[in-house]
Structures are given as C-alpha cells and as structure tokens.
C-alpha cells in the first residue's frame, strides 16, 4: 500500500520539474498565463517531443511511451505548475489523438498519429455554434456527401486556437436536421481547405483567444470521417479524453494559489499577511485543492489499474471546475483595485493573469448545465437515487 507516489514516480516528477526549471532559466520559454491553452511555443513542444513526453500515456504500438496514467498525471501537474506553454500540441495529444487511436482507420492512424507525436500537427476543436451554444445535440453545421466528399456549410464559434491550428476536429450534422445527437459525425478537417474563413473574437477581459470559423462549401474527403458516419456523438462525449482525472483543473488552481500567496501577498500586498479573514480564505482554498486533488488522483489510479471510473470522473470534474470559479472569485477580491490592470501593466499583480482566468472559469460549468448533469450521475450511480 502506498498512499502517495512511489519513489520511481517521485523521481519522474523530479526529472520533469528540473527540466522545466532549466528551460525557464535558459529563457527557453516564458510562463504561460492561467488559461494555458492559449499558449503556443513550437520550440518547447519540440523539446518535449525529444524527451518522449508527448504521447506519454499513448500505447507503444502507436508510437507512445506506454507509461501509466499516474505518470501522465504527474507530468500534467508539473506542466501546469511550470506554466509551460503547451498549446501547440495539447489538444492533439490529449484529446484528438486518443480518439483517432480508438476510432480511426489504419490510414488515419498512419497519417495523423506520427505528426502529433512529433508535435508538428496543431489541432483545434470545432464544437460550439452560434445557435446551439455548447449543446451538441442542436448543432447545425451540415455535411452532405457529394461525389466522394463531404461538403460542409455552417459556422463554429468560440474556437480556441483556430488561428494557429493545422487541422480541426469538427463535429457536423450528417443526419436529418432533427436527428439531434444521432445525426452527428466527426471530421478531421485541414484548415487550409478552400472555403474556410477564420475570424478572431475578443473576450471581455481583452484577450484574443477565440475565433469564429466559417465553412462555405468546404470539400472534405470521405476518408477524413473519424469513426462511423452519424457516430460523432460517442466520439465527442467519450473518446475525446484519454485522461479523465481533471487534474489540470486542480494543478492550475495550485499554481494560482501559489502565485497569490508567494507573489502577491508575499510581495506586493504584505499588509494582507496578517489579515485573518484573508488567511482563513486561503486556508479554505488550500483544503479544497486537497479535496479536488484526491478526486483526480483516484481517477488516474483507477485508470492505471485498468479499472474504468464512472461517477468518480463526475466528482473530479464538478469539484475541480467549481473550485476554479471559487478561487478566481477569491483571488479577484484579494487583488482589489489592482485586479483592474491588464496583463503587461507594471503594477498588475501576478502579471495580470487572474482577470483573464476569472472570466474564463465561468465557462466551465455553464451552458449545457454540465455541472448539473455530473451531479445527476453522482446521485443516481453513486447513491442509487431514482432517475
């Protein structure tokens, strides 16, 4: 029994941490802000490929390192704490790649997996739409089969990183207009295809990380269909995540708390050090991070033993995502007036990152009522309450 990491696991963590420390010291990367998916450093991605850390938990038969989910969890924690800019390969490695491994044709595997593992293929996820919001069952972007191609028409919105990606995972409607989740298909789309237009969107905090993506009679070869036709729902809801522990939410919270305690209170606002109310709030957040952490660890541990977690993933997701909101709220309260300054201002504490994160965390639990669905799962599967 070992209620923590094994010496081998600790060594691995140390190795990863030292690597990032040194890279940062060498100026090889600048720490990314808390909405880390916006970050982008081909150079760092290449370094991680060289270390064999892209595809860490992928099966060896597909060129991955075949390491355990616990190792991957450790790696994710360290990436977040280091503020490493991993946006170049993250969605490809963590979300789309696993879906291709699970559902792709031999041809697709051969085409897409090697460049993903080399960090050379940047992907983005095209799910949300103006009318449907994040309710996938209402998606309207249409793909008709015409002469050996899908012809795609429609609009995706709030797409992070579309301006930098090579390919997109696009969920389209191939069934009837009212087929809801039964008429969706997943396409792998080359973003250089004629008819695609990408336009930036600006977020309330001034960041430019979202895009609109317009499809105007875009021809996508039939062989770029991922999985079955009309089988996109299953891929989008079940296969788009290899690692379901939500550890990235916990780890980013840990980084934010660290920055608040060390940089802000330990530096800019020493006066808050003795403020009992602030101290207790910080302690409360520390407890909640421990709580969320364990829920994540449990999922990774179950996965590493080949057990498929059920309501355990719901618990990790609900706690982790709601914790990000609480922490962002508390953080903004502590920053006070200083929190009104933008990234880059010399007076902005914690480099002005908190504000951007504050508004983005709200997206994690709203929309399709994600938290509510997770809570239903917890009550029904966990406690046997009636549906």
């Amino acid at each position: 029994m070992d209620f923590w990491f094994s010496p081998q696991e600790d060594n691995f963590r140390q190795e990863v941490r030292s690597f990032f420390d040194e890279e940062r010291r060498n100026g090889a990367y600048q720490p990314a802000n808390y909405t880390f998916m916006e970050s982008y450093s081909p150079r760092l991605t290449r370094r991680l490929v060289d270390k064999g850390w892209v595809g860490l938990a992928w099966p060896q038969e597909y060129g991955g390192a075949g390491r355990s989910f616990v190792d991957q969890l450790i790696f994710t924690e360290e990436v977040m704490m280091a503020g490493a800019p991993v946006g170049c390969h993250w969605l490809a490695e963590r979300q789309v790649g696993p879906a291709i491994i699970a559902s792709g044709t031999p041809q697709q595997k051969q085409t897409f997996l090697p460049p993903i593992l080399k960090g050379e293929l940047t992907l983005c996820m095209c799910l949300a739409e103006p009318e449907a919001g994040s309710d996938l069952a209402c998606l309207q972007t249409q793909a008709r089969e015409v002469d050996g191609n899908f012809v795609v028409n429609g609009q995706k919105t709030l797409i992070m990183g579309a301006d930098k990606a090579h390919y997109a995972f696009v969920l389209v409607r191939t069934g009837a207009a009212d087929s809801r989740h039964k008429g969706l298909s997943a396409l792998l789309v080359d973003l250089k295809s004629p008819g695609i237009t990408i336009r930036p969107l600006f977020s309330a905090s001034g960041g430019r990380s979202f895009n609109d993506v317009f499809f105007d009679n875009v021809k996508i070869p039939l062989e770029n269909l991922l999985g079955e036709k009309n089988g996109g729902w299953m891929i989008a809801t079940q296969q788009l995540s290899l690692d379901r522990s939500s550890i990235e939410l916990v780890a980013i919270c840990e980084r934010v708390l660290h920055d608040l305690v060390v940089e802000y209170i330990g530096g800019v606002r020493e006066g808050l050090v003795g403020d009992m109310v602030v101290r207790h709030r910080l302690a409360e957040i520390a407890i909640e991070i421990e709580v969320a952490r364990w829920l994540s660890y449990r999922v990774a541990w179950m996965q590493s033993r080949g057990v498929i977690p059920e309501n355990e993933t719901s618990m990790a997701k609900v706690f982790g995502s709601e914790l990000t909101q609480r922490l962002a709220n508390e953080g903004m309260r502590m920053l006070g007036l200083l929190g009104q300054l933008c990234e880059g201002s010399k007076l902005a504490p914690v480099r002005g990152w908190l504000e951007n994160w504050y508004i983005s965390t709200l997206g994690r639990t709203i929309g399709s009522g994600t938290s509510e669905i997770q809570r239903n799962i917890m009550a029904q599967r966990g406690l046997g309450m009636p549906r």
Partner: protein
Amino acid sequence: MDFQFTPEQVKFRQEVRDFLKKEQPKDFHWPWWFEGVLGNDEMWAISKQMARKMGAKGWLSLTWPKEYGGLEKGHIELLIFTEEIAYHRAPGVDIFGIKMLSPVLLAFGNDEQKKKYLPPIGRGEMFWAQGFSEPNAGSDLASLQTRAIEQDSFYLVNGQKVWTTGAHRADAIFFLARTDTQVAKHKGISFFLVDAQTPGIEVRPLINLTGSHSFNEIFFENVKVPKENLVGGKNNGWLMATALLNFERSGIGYVGACRRNLEEIVALTRNNKALAGNPVFTHKLGELAAEIEVGRWLGYRIAWMQSKKMNVDAQASMAKVFATELMHRIDNTGMQVAGLYGQLAEGDKRVPLGGRLGESYMSNLGRTIAAGASEIQRNIIAQRGLGLPRD
C-alpha cells in the same frame, strides 16, 4: 410610517425620466461605474454634453445654496435623481467634482473658493480628478509622500500620485500633499486645488484589463500651486479627506444599477426555455428581486435619515456592503444566463446585453467588494451598529 414619496417628489422623478428619455442618446448605456466612459472619446463627449444639460436644469447642484447656483432641495430629491440616473445608465454626473469635491468646498472652502469653483461645477462645465493614492502609501493614505513647500505666494509641489481616475480628462485636480514633516503623519497634510494645465504636471496612462484608459499616474515636478488654492487651512487636509460629509450616502446608485441589470437578465431568461423552467434558477432570480427591493428601502431610509440630520454611518455601511455584493450576485447570475457568449467583449454583436454584464462582472468584484472594502464596512457596522469596541 409611510413608504411613499410626496406628490412633488413623484413629479420630480417623472421630470428626470422625461428629460432622460428626451436627451439621452438612444441605446446609450453609460457604464454604471464612472470610469468606463473615460477611455472613450465619443462617450466622454456625450457625457460632457449631458453634464451641461443637467447643469442647466440645476440637477448637478440640487442641494446647494442658491447663492452658488444650487436649488436648495433635500436629500430625498437627490436620492431620486441618483436612482434614476443609475437605472437609466445616464452619463453626465462627475463623481469627483459633484460628489466628492463640492461637499468639501461647501463645508471648508472660503467664500472666494466657493464662488469661483462651485458654479462651473454645478453648470457641468468643469471636471475634476482626485489625487489621493500614492505608489508607496498602499492602503495607508496618511503616509503619503508628495511634498508641498510653502514659498512666497505659492506652494512648490513635488511627488507622484497613482490610480488617478480620469486625470487625462479633468480640467483640474484636487489633491493631498504633505506640508509638515515634523508632526504625526496625518497632521501634516493639506488639501489643494490645481489647474490640470499647470506647468510641471505630467499625466501618464495606466491601461486597465479591458484595454481602456481610465486610470493614470500623475507626476508633480516643481509645480507652483497658488496659496489661494489651499482649502480649509494648512495642515488640515486629513480632516477633509476623511470627514463623512453631508453627501448622498444611500448607495441608491448601486441599487438602481442592480435593478436595471436584473430586469434585463429576467427578460433574457424568459426567452430561454431551459432556464425559465429550472426552479433552481428562477428561485435565485426571485430572491434577487426581493433583495433589490430591500436595497432600495435601505437607500430610501438613509436619505430620509440624512434629511432629518441623523447619523447614518452604520446604515450607510450596511447599504453599501449589501448593494455591492448584491450586484456581484446579479452579475454572476446574469453571466450564467448569457452562457458562453457572455465571455465575449463589449461590442461583439452576439454578446448578450451588449457585453455590459461581463464588464460589470469583471470590474465589480475586485473594485467594490474587495477583501478590504467590504470588510472595512463590516467593521464599521460592528462598531457603530452593534456597539462593539474598536478593534
């Protein structure tokens, strides 16, 4: 006990509404927090225009004595005006000149100062900035370091101010400077007025998180401030900076803004079947509506108490904590209704309610219910409301 306004007061409210309907540019939503307007040339121009029109009505000097251009109305009229302005998101009331400086001048200024400054403020023709905060003073205002050394006919001022909202728009600045370094720190401070164009004053922008320019740093380098610009006597500045003057303290502006925000959110919700049918959500809206009613009453009572010359310290703190935290709850609820698009910036055509919710959500939490701010108010409540000793 009678929770109604007099017929005259009801008529005055209607008059303000009619004026705003006529004069406020259509679809113009002034950010409830003053600064939003300062980074935008067009908004600032509209704001100045509206100020003149309101000034012409006498509404910027509602409670002042007639000899300085005032209407000599009471606190209740001021409350009504403030509530309507906030609810309608109308521009034109310069909080620095109208709300902060003019009560100081009325109480401590000499007759010459009153005659010189109050009329243009009341006509909506002169705009001010407040130079209090300094980079090294933190939250301890009394430890400010800007020096004003008395010379023949002027004070020679050197130092730096920070967080000066609207300094790049202001015609003049009121500020605190140290005039005696030999006494306890809050005893050596004086209160000055200065024309913003005076040589030696440099204003540098601080850009806020929405990319807009409302905060500034001000550098004073050998600035000569005429002696007649000293208000309330040398070394008496601390008194003026901290005196709880006889201004409008009802917090009704917050409540008016809350009410408008919630009305818009309720309308949004009615159009969203899933949310309108979800009791968890509609119950929350129902409670917020009840709380707004409470906030209004807290505000009305404070204005009424002030009109009776009663002390309102504890009540004003309660009203402020309540209203600002209520606004955060409302905005947060609104952001949930707005969904993913709520994250988009003001101006994007798809962001609900023109992105005003997001703007308010971003700025409210840190600014008005920050750890310090609400907690200082709670301490005032504990002391003056509950009679606990100072901590």
